[in-house]
C-alpha cells in the first residue's frame, strides 16, 4: 500500500467521511448489475475470493466471462430462478464517502421492494438502455423515487457503446425523461451517458464521448450535496425508551427525527402538552449543549413530566399535527390478503403503535401512467390514496416535509406481517399557535348570531328557503367557476335568493391586499368563509368557488356555516387535464417559477377527505356537473 493510500485510511480521513445511501432499480437487461459490479470492483469492494467464487459459478453455468450479476443475487432461490427477489444491501467506500446500495429488482411485481429500498435512500440511480429510450419501467422508477421523496435522481443512460456514443441519442432520451419528471416532485435530476460494461463515465471519464463534459457516475455519487436533505427546522423527538437506572435519573432516549435542540430550550411533550425545559442532553461520551437530526441521545428535563415510549418531545412554537384522522398515500405489501376497510390494523408511526382503520379508499393510482382509477381495494404492489383513522392521535408531518414523521406502516394483527407502507399527505400548520387561533375563531364567532336584530328564521321565511353555503374546491382550471356560474343562474331562474362568491373575483376587491403565501391564502379563505356565513344567515344560497387547497380551511368554513347548512363540493379533474385546458398559460408560468405557491405545481392540494358532492369534470360537461349539483341542492334548500 502506498503512502497516500495509507493516508486515506487515517483517523482524520474517516472522521470526515460522509455516508450516502442510494437505491438502484432495474432489471439485468438494463445492465444494472454490471454497473454495481463495476462500482464495487473499481472501489475494491469485491474481494479476490468473491471473484473466484463468481468465476466458479459462472463457469458451472456455462457462461463466458464473469457474470457480475451473480454478485448481487444473493440467495440460492434467486440464483436458481435467475431473478433478484429481495432488497440486497451492498457496501463500498471511497476516500470521500461510504456508500450503502439498496439494490432492488425493477419489475412491476417488485414495487414493494423498490419502495422499501427507496425509503432510506438519498439518491436513486435510474438506468435507461440507450437503445430503447424511456420505457414504462423508467417512468415507474421515477414515480417511486418521487413518491418516496428521494431528493436526487441520477439517470444513467447505459449501453452508449451500442449506439455509437451518439450525443443525439443521449439528448433525446434526456429530454423525454425531463418532460416526464416535470409532473413529479424530484428537485435534482442529473443525466450521465455511460457504458457500464466498458466502463465509460462510470469511474473514469470516457474517451469515446468528448461531447459530454459532466461528471462520471462515481464523481457524482461522491460530490452530490446530501447534507441539506434532512429536515433541519422542525424539532421532533419520538421517545423511544425511558431510561430510569436509579431514582435520581430519569431520561428520555431516542434519535432526533428532525431539527435540533439545545440545552435550556423550552419544550412540549405530546400528547399531554405539558411544558418544561431541556436540562441536559446526555450521552456516554459526555453531555452535549446541542444535538441535531440523526443523533441518538437521552434528554433530561427540568420538571418531572410523565412521558412514555411513543410520545413526542417538540418545541413549543413548532408543533406537528396531532390527528387521529389523516389522508395518506398507501402502498399495499401483502400478497395473501387485500386491503380491508373493516380490519383494525396496527399503525406503526415513529415509535408509536396504535390501532387504526383504513376508513376510505379514495382511488388507486396506476404507477405506470400516474392516472387515478376507482378501486374497491388494494392488492400487492398497488398504490392508493386513503383516509386513515386511528384510536389514538398520531403526531404527524406531511411526508413531503419530513420523511421521519410522515412515514408509517400498517401491520395485520392476525399475521403480524407488515402489510402496507404509508406516506402522510396532509400539510402541517405552520405553528401550533396559529392553528389554534384559526380554530378558536370559529368558536368565538358562533356567538355573534345572538346579536342580530332580525332572526335567521325571519330572513329564511322571506327568501322562501334556507340559507345555505355551497363550497366548490378544486385545482385551477378544474371547472369550479364555470359550474358555479351555471348553478347560480339556474337557482336565480328558479327564484332562489342566490349569490356567487368567486375567489378570483374577490381577489380584485375584498382580498386585493393578499398574495398567495400560505398565510395569505388562509386569510383569503377566512374572509370568504365569514362573508358566506353572514349571507347564509340572512337567507342566501351562497355559491363559493375558490381553490381552498387545505382541508383545514374548508373545515373551518363548514364550522362557520349556520346550522350545518353547508356542502363541500369537490370539482375533481386530473392535473393533466387542467393543464390542457389552461389557455392562459398559468401552469406554464408556475412551472417556470414565475408564479410561486401555485397549487398543484409548487404547493400542495389536499383533496377533500369526504366531499358531500364529488363532480368529476374530465369526461363530463360543465352542464352535466351543474345538473348533478343542483339535484343534490334541490332536496336541501
Amino acid at each position: 500500500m502506498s503512502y497516500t493510500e495509507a493516508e486515506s485510511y487515517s483517523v482524520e480521513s474517516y472522521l470526515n467521511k460522509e455516508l450516502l445511501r442510494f437505491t438502484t432499480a432495474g432489471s439485468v437487461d438494463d445492465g444494472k448489475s454490471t454497473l454495481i459490479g463495476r462500482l464495487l470492483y473499481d472501489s475494491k469492494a469485491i474481494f479476490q475470493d468473491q471473484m473466484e467464487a463468481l468465476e466458479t459459478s459462472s463457469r458451472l453455468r456455462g457462461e463466458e466471462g464473469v457474470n457480475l450479476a451473480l454478485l448481487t443475487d444473493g440467495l440460492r432461490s434467486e440464483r436458481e430462478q435467475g431473478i433478484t427477489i429481495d432488497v440486497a444491501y451492498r457496501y463500498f467506500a471511497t476516500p470521500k464517502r461510504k456508500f450503502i446500495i439498496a439494490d432492488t429488482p425493477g419489475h412491476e411485481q417488485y414495487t414493494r421492494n423498490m419502495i422499501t429500498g427507496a425509503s432510506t435512500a438519498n439518491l436513486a440511480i435510474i438506468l435507461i438502455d440507450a437503445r430503447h429510450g424511456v420505457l414504462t419501467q423508467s417512468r415507474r422508477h421515477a414515480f417511486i423515487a418521487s413518491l418516496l421523496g428521494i431528493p436526487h435522481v441520477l439517470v444513467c443512460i447505459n449501453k452508449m457503446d451500442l449506439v455509437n456514443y451518439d450525443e443525439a441519442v443521449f439528448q433525446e432520451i434526456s429530454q423525454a425523461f425531463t418532460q416526464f419528471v416535470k409532473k413529479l416532485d424530484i428537485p435534482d435530476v442529473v443525466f450521465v451517458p455511460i457504458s457500464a460494461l466498458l466502463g465509460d463515465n462510470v469511474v473514469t471519464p470516457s474517451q469515446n464521448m468528448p461531447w459530454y463534459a459532466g461528471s462520471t457516475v462515481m464523481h457524482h455519487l461522491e460530490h452530490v450535496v446530501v447534507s441539506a436533505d434532512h429536515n433541519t427546522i422542525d424539532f421532533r423527538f419520538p421517545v423511544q425508551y425511558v431510561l430510569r437506572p436509579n431514582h435520581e435519573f430519569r431520561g428520555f432516549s431516542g434519535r432526533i427525527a428532525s431539527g435540533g435542540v439545545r440545552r435550556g430550550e423550552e419544550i412540549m411533550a405530546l400528547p399531554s402538552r405539558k411544558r418544561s425545559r431541556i436540562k441536559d442532553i446526555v450521552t456516554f461520551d459526555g453531555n452535549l449543549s446541542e444535538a441535531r437530526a440523526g443523533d441518538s441521545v437521552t434528554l433530561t428535563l427540568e420538571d418531572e413530566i410523565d412521558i412514555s415510549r411513543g410520545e413526542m418531545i417538540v418545541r413549543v412554537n413548532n408543533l406537528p399535527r396531532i390527528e387521529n384522522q389523516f389522508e395518506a398515500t398507501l402502498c399495499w405489501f401483502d400478497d395473501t390478503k387485500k386491503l380491508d376497510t373493516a380490519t383494525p390494523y396496527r399503525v406503526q408511526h415513529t415509535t408509536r403503535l396504535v390501532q387504526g382503520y383504513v376508513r376510505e379508499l379514495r382511488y388507486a393510482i396506476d404507477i405506470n401512467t400516474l392516472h387515478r382509477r376507482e378501486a374497491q381495494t388494494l392488492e400487492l404492489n398497488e398504490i392508493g390514496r386513503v383516509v386513515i383513522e386511528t384510536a389514538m392521535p398520531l403526531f404527524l408531518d406531511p411526508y413531503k416535509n419530513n420523511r421521519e414523521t410522515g412515514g408509517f406502516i400498517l401491520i395485520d394483527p392476525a399475521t403480524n406481517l407488515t402489510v402496507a407502507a404509508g406516506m402522510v399527505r396532509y400539510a402541517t400548520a405552520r405553528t401550533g399557535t396559529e392553528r389554534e387561533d384559526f380554530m378558536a375563531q370559529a368558536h368565538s364567532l358562533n356567538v355573534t348570531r345572538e346579536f342580530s336584530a332580525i332572526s335567521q328564521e325571519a330572513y329564511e321565511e322571506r327568501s322562501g328557503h334556507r340559507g345555505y353555503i355551497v363550497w366548490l374546491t378544486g385545482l385551477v382550471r378544474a371547472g369550479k367557476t364555470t359550474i358555479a356560474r351555471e348553478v347560480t343562474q339556474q337557482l336565480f331562474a328558479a327564484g332562489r335568493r342566490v349569490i356567487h362568491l368567486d375567489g378570483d373575483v374577490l381577489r380584485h376587491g375584498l382580498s386585493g391586499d393578499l398574495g398567495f403565501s400560505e398565510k395569505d391564502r388562509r386569510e383569503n379563505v377566512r374572509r370568504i368563509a365569514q362573508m358566506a356565513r353572514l349571507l347564509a344567515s340572512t337567507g342566501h344560497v351562497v355559491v363559493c368557488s375558490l381553490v381552498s387547497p387545505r382541508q383545514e380551511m374548508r373545515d373551518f368554513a363548514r364550522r362557520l356555516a349556520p346550522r350545518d347548512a353547508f356542502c363541500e363540493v369537490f370539482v375533481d379533474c386530473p392535473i393533466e387535464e387542467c393543464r390542457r385546458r389552461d389557455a392562459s398559460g398559468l401552469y406554464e408560468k408556475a412551472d417556470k417559477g414565475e408564479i410561486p405557491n401555485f397549487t398543484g405545481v409548487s404547493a400542495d392540494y389536499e383533496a377533500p377527505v369526504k366531499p358531500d358532492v364529488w363532480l368529476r369534470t374530465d369526461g363530463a360537461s360543465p352542464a352535466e356537473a351543474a345538473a348533478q349539483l343542483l339535484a343534490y341542492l334541490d332536496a336541501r334548500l
Partner: protein
Amino acid sequence: MSHLKQLESEAIFVIREAAAQAERPMMLFSGGKDSICMAHLARKAFYPGNIPFPLMHIDTGHNFPETIAYRDQYLKEIGANLIVRTVQESIDKGRCVDETGIGASRNGLQTITLLDAIAEFQFDAALGGARRDEEKARAKERFFSFRSAFGQWDPKNQRSELWNLFNGQKKKGEHFRVFPISNWTELDVWQYIELEKIPMPALYFSHQRAVFERDGILYAASDVMERHPHEEVQERTVRFRTIGDMTCTGAVESPAANIRDIILEVASTRTTERGTRGDDKRTEAAMEDRKKVGYF
C-alpha cells in the same frame, strides 16, 4: 455527521428498539470483534444505566482459551450479566451428536444449544453482531429478522423494513434476531474500535502460533482438531481476522501488531474475512442453509 457517527447512532437506535419492543431480550456475545463492538454500543445506548438485558455466550467447548479469558474480563469490567450455555451440555443431554473424524466441527451444533437456551429463558429477541457485508445470504437480512417457533428463517417471507420502522410483532414462542451493526463493514468495525479505544483480544494481533494448513486455510494446532498425518504443524507469525471456535477459524499470516496495522491490512487486503472460515466453504449456499435452520 461522519459515516461512523451515523452508523453508531443507527446501531444505538436499533438496540434501544429491541429493548423497548421485546419483553425478554438478550445479546449474543462470542468474544469476537463484532460482538465486542455491539456490547460497547449497548453500553452507550443505556448510559448512565447498565445494559438492561443479559449477554449470552454459546460455548462450543472448542474456543480459544484467550477468548474465554477476554470474555470474563471485559464483561466484568462493563458490569454486564453473562449467561453461558455449552454445546457439551446439549451433547450430554442427547440433544445432538458430536461430529467425528477429520474436519469435525461443533459449529453447526451451536444452533441446537442456542435454540434450547432461547426456549429455556423464553427470550423473544436475540441481538447479534452479524453484518450484511460478511456473506451474500446476510446481505438480505433485516435489522429485525423474524424467527418462527422452530427458530427458522424464511428468506422469501421476510417483513419489509421501511424508514426506521421495525415491526417487532410476534406470537408466543416466536422470536427475533436483531442485528444492530447490519450496515457496518469490517473496516468500519476496526475504525470504530480504533476511534473508541475498545480493548481487543490478543488473538487479533500478530503472534507466534503452532498451525497447520488444510484446504488453503491455516488452523491452530490443538487437541480439539484431528489432523491427517501429512498435515505438518509449523510455527508461524499469524493473527485471526475472525474469532469463532478453533475448528472452523483460520489464521492469516500477518505482522499487524496493533489496530492501526490491522486497519491498513484490512483496507489493502484482497480476500474477505470469511475467506478464513472453513464453515462457509462447505457449499455455495452454506450460510443460507445454516441460517434457515436457526444459525446466528
